[in-house]
């Protein structure tokens, strides 16, 4: 009964097994209907998963109250992270869930509102901070050239446990970023110049 919110997504995925959904040979308004059903299911499922993650992650504090799934990261849009980084007053928490049965490391790209320096900390067991580093923002690639410029914070998660989660805290700082701040304990990409031949 707890996982009833997942049924809507299951239903929508079942309906989308129809050959014209899989192959794209449906009329446009039918394709719209498939996407509507899938998005409705996704919305319900993501709320359920967020609540489950919150309950298993942080048991006794008001933290992560508004934990939500970022549906439009592929469009460099995430309302909550952009809202939380408009001013210095809030901390942003990022929960990364690895669905694979093997350890992976990934690069997270998160839209933020302010072109500032951010401190990224990985929060481990008993709320100790395992890794922290300062990162600068990069201008996001907007989906449409006419969109307002946006910024992205990018950080490496380090090893994510198999079928597990990692928690990060991202805080805006008012430090001005300079390349000397680039921490050298992480290997960087290097750029060389040489003649065309």
């Amino acid at each position, binding site marked *: 009964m707890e996982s009833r919110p997942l049924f809507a997504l299951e239903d929508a995925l079942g309906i989308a097994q129809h050959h014209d959904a899989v192959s794209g040979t449906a009329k446009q308004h039918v394709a719209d209907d498939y996407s509507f059903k899938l998005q409705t299911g996704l919305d319900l499922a993501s709320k359920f998963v967020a609540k489950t993650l919150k309950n298993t992650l*942080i048991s006794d*504090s008001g933290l992560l109250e508004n934990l*939500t799934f970022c549906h439009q990261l592929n*469009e460099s849009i995430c309302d909550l992270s952009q809202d939380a980084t408009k001013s210095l007053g809030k901390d942003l928490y*990022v929960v990364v869930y690895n669905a694979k049965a093997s350890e992976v490391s990934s690069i997270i790209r998160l839209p933020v509102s302010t072109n500032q320096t951010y401190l990224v900390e990985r929060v481990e067991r008993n709320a100790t901070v395992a890794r922290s580093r300062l990162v600068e923002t990069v201008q996001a690639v907007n989906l449409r050239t006419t969109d307002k410029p946006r910024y992205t914070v990018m950080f490496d998660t380090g090893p994510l446990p198999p079928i597990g989660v990692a928690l990060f805290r991202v805080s805006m700082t008012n430090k001005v970023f300079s390349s000397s701040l680039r921490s050298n304990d992480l290997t960087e990409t290097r*750029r060389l110049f040489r003649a065309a031949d």
Partner: protein
Amino acid sequence: GKDVVVSNELLSVTFDSSTGMMKQVFSQNVSLLLTQEWGYYTSFDSDYDRTEVPSSRADQNSGAYVFRPSTPEEKLKLMNASPSGAKFVDTSVGTEVHVAFDAPWIRQVTRILKGQPYVEIEYTIGPIPIDDGRGREIVNRYITPIKSEGKVYTDSNGREFLERRRNYRPSWSLEVYEQVAGNYYPINAAAYIEDSDAALSVVVDRSQGGGSIIDGTLEFMVQRRTVADDFRGVDEPLNETCGGMEPYPPYGDAKRVGDGVVIRGVHRLLVGAKGAGLARSQMDATFAEPLIFVASSPKPSTPVGAL
């Protein structure tokens, strides 16, 4: 005239500093000349192209059920979009190369990321212009000197790789009418070409059509927009406008509004000795990206409690 070499622990990529396009990749002790081009096939439309082909084949348009480029000559040649500017951006997790093209609806970011064994190509396509009344099928082609001898390997089911041979079918003798469309296959996870010296694998983040029309090349159709129906049952062209239809529900003469959909996708390129192993190493990670949830809390916030 200068090249830029960007490298991480596992690979190094040489870029043309003015166009921002790749020239060469060195990875897993293999050095491979690798270039790339964007272009499109013009969709076959019997209203325009009927005279180019025998009358017996003059009606079949390109559309939802059928992919068919417009004219025989064009079949082998992409209408190229050339790069018009590049920006190299250092980030905290790697280097990005932002490339703009003379077709403003094609944009690309090439990423070399810390600790990742692949070159990530992120493309943003659209809205595809149709004001000249012609449909376009957008293709990204990777070009190498690999002596693939007409062979390409595609997964079709997300698991096994099948050998595909140009202008050939294993179970009947094929008469080739469509040199491009007849050599396109479904690619749901990855495709690769290889010879005794090198292999190029490309892992896709969504199902696409693609193939190897010319030796040493791999191409992927990343987006399509047609303006003619292919008379196979949908009864409308592939023309998503991103604005919906009016009046809605659209039965009969509904009018499309909006200027066209914009899509964004990723190709991950791996260079090495064996194509299958390269592809296999990234298929799962590309299919099951970590899920990201965010929350905010007023400062000072202390993450208490046990994970």
